């Protein structure tokens, strides 16, 4: 029995062990560069935006949904926020607020298609992905928009002492996400709906409303990620968010959130984000080509989902 408990302890923290092993490998392979202070700060900056986006995605995947539109939301937030600040001469805070509202509304639109109309999430968010990528191009004309207020560097460039502000934003977001999941009734509803939608409805949960909320949150967190990214790059590009949903989904699934819904913890997602972040960084340090990186990340996603599905299979026997 004691042995069993030890086993479970290892199992539930396996993801952190993977992370530690990864760090050790990269530390040795890079001859120490990987674990220098400046590189760690670098990683923190790199992971912050998809860390933020992964929180909304965690909620979505917990109810066995998917949100493919977040890459486009990030692009559109970049373009729209930049457009409002540069072309429309809007105050930075108003522009950020407006962009976040827009991101949330796109999430609501996803929610409407999934919950009220009943379009499968994969298709509904695939459609909005295409739509808003197109909208971003239409607004920017495909040209980068730059020349922001220097204060806009707050979200992605500034630091508080040695700690980048964007990392602090990410940590705060994770804290909020964890709070929603563990301390509010919404979290209980997410797990219930992911476990069994019909039974959840019959237990008095208004499933459709919760779905609206979840997709709206996914939009909002993606929007916030977009702001951080825009601040860091200092210029809005119409391709900036392309494919980001892939990294974010990989982080979430790697973090142990089951694609079948109902299972997963925020702490696991944190580990997933750190693993993907340091993997990307480590590969860049070691001069691995972008295409090889794609191959590696694809394999990581397949393995993560594979482990999830295998453990599900074992349970049913």
């Amino acid at each position, binding site marked *: 029995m004691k042995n*069993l408990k030890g086993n479970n302890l290892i199992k539930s923290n396996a993801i952190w062990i993977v992370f530690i092993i990864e760090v050790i490998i990269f530390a040795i392979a890079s001859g120490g560069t990987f674990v220098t202070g400046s590189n760690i700060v670098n990683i923190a900056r790199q992971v912050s935006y998809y860390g933020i986006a992964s929180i909304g995605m965690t909620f979505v995947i917990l109810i066995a949904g998917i949100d493919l539109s977040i890459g486009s939301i990030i692009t559109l937030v970049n373009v729209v926020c930049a457009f409002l600040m540069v072309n429309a001469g809007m105050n930075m805070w108003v522009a950020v607020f407006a962009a976040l509202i827009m991101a949330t509304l796109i999430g609501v639109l996803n929610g409407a298609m999934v919950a009220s109309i009943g379009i499968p999430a994969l298709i509904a968010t695939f459609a909005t992905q295409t739509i808003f990528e197109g909208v971003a191009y239409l607004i920017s004309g495909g040209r980068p928009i730059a020349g922001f207020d220097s204060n806009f560097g707050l979200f992605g460039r500034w630091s508080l002492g040695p700690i980048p502000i964007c990392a602090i934003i990410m940590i705060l977001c994770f804290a909020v996400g964890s709070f929603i999941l563990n*301390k509010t*009734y919404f979290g*209980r509803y997410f797990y219930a709906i992911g476990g*069994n939608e019909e*039974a*959840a409805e*019959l*237990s008095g949960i208004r499933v459709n409303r919760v779905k609206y909320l979840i997709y709206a949150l996914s939009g909002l967190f993606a929007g916030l990620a977009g702001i951080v990214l825009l601040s860091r790059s200092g210029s809005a590009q119409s391709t900036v968010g392309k494919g980001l949903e892939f990294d974010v989904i990989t982080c979430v699934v790697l973090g142990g959130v089951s694609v079948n819904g*109902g299972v997963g913890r925020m702490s696991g997602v944190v580990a997933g984000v750190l693993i993907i972040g340091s993997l990307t960084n480590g590969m860049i340090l070691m001069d691995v080509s972008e295409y090889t990186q794609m191959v590696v990340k694809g394999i990581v996603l397949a393995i993560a989902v594979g482990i999830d599905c295998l453990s599900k299979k074992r349970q049913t026997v």
Partner: protein
Amino acid sequence: MSEEFVLELEHIRKEYPGVIALKDVTLQLRRGEVLGLIGENGAGKSTLIKCCSGAVVPTSGKIKINGKEFDSMTPQLAAENGIAIIYQEFNNVGELSAAENLFLGRPIRKGMVIDKKAMVEEAAKAFDQLQIKIDPRELVKNLSVGYQQMIEIAKAIQQNAQVLIMDEPSAPLTTNEVENMFKVVELLREKGVSIIYISHRLEEIFRLSDRIEVIRDGEYVDTLITPKATVDELIKLMVGREMTQQFPPRKPCIDKSKVVLELKNVYGNGDEDMSLKIHAGEVLGLGGLVGAGRTELAEVIFGAKAKTSGQILLNGKEINPKSPREAIDLGIALVPEDRKRHGALLTNSIKNNINMPIYERISKASVIDASTEKANAEKYRKEIQIKCPSVNQLVRNLSGGNQQKVILGKWLAAKSQLIIFDEPTRGLDVGAKYEIYKLINDLVESGHSVLMISSEMEELIGMSDRIIVLAEHQMTGELQKEEFNADTIMTLASAIVDNADNAGGKEAS
């Protein structure tokens, strides 16, 4: 020895990490006999048959087929040796014809193409052999559950099954379909097929079996010759204790002056012209055949489905619940028929299940009051005796009876006034049934009202204060306690609605 027994399981043991599913079970199946296999839920019946099919590999023990010894089974090996299992869920493909399903995975071919004509002919022959009337060309989705089961059986026989294991075959069937299934089982026995028949319904076991094996808590208990066995004896062997009576006594508690729920000419969800009253402290039984419209009525009252016309009154006030949420807030609860699909949230903890309908009530600014949450769960765990090491345990890991208690606990936590039970004891063993009956008694004695849908005649008669019978989505009769009679209820349940004059609307309050 090996001549006599077609299948022998010797000292089968199956351990899972932390749990022993089977301690030591031995089973011997004679050629051409029907062996009834009974035991409480969790006794290990399912695990045992999965050992036969190769779905589960035993930790230790031997399996002998026709005297040939196997250490373990694989699904393929089981099929090759003539072992077939009819599960509660069928493996039919709805969009294919009966004949195509019969030859699923091994179609008759003419060269490269599938020979449909030959398949239809062969299927007709196979169905004829079992004396079942199915048009081989009919799509399976258009066939009733009973016929779908027949196709499964025909498929097994077509593949030369010598041993047929049937897991609760009567559970999804209507009364008529059960009769047909019995005939097929008897026919197969005559043809020399050996059958292991698993059922909770003892009368079926008595009707069909030659011998009865009882297992309890993963252990072999005894095997009885059916004609010499009695119900009391079997129940005693199954539960390991004496059951004095099947239905616990109830104190008189009906308050005729208080009508809790009243339906006035309600139409909707397929049902027509439903009028009834339920009083405080009363158990109103809803009888009828499967498909008579009872579950549909429950869904309308619970707000899960819309009513098209008529009035629903709760405590004299008209209500119009548009969702389960609204119904729950009005004090109406539903314990659904399909516990695992609709009732319990299996992947959530007992604590979460019990608090699920009231999270918004016990939260401030959406933050849950964790101590109230915990106290609620502990309260109902104690009050209705949910057997579990901790309220943090997942409901998936509970037995059927305890899952049912968790669902009930959730409605008690929600302070429901009217509780609708749809087949409250389906799939439960004798001991768990008795506990559920006691809980229903406690409910009405404490002033709740109960609407109980039941297809088990004994349960309907034993538990109801009054019975309303439905047939073909209409009310065909209402019986007072002194009028209860199985034959009358059966007649009303199969009544052709046109002839059931002046029935239904009669209220006797």
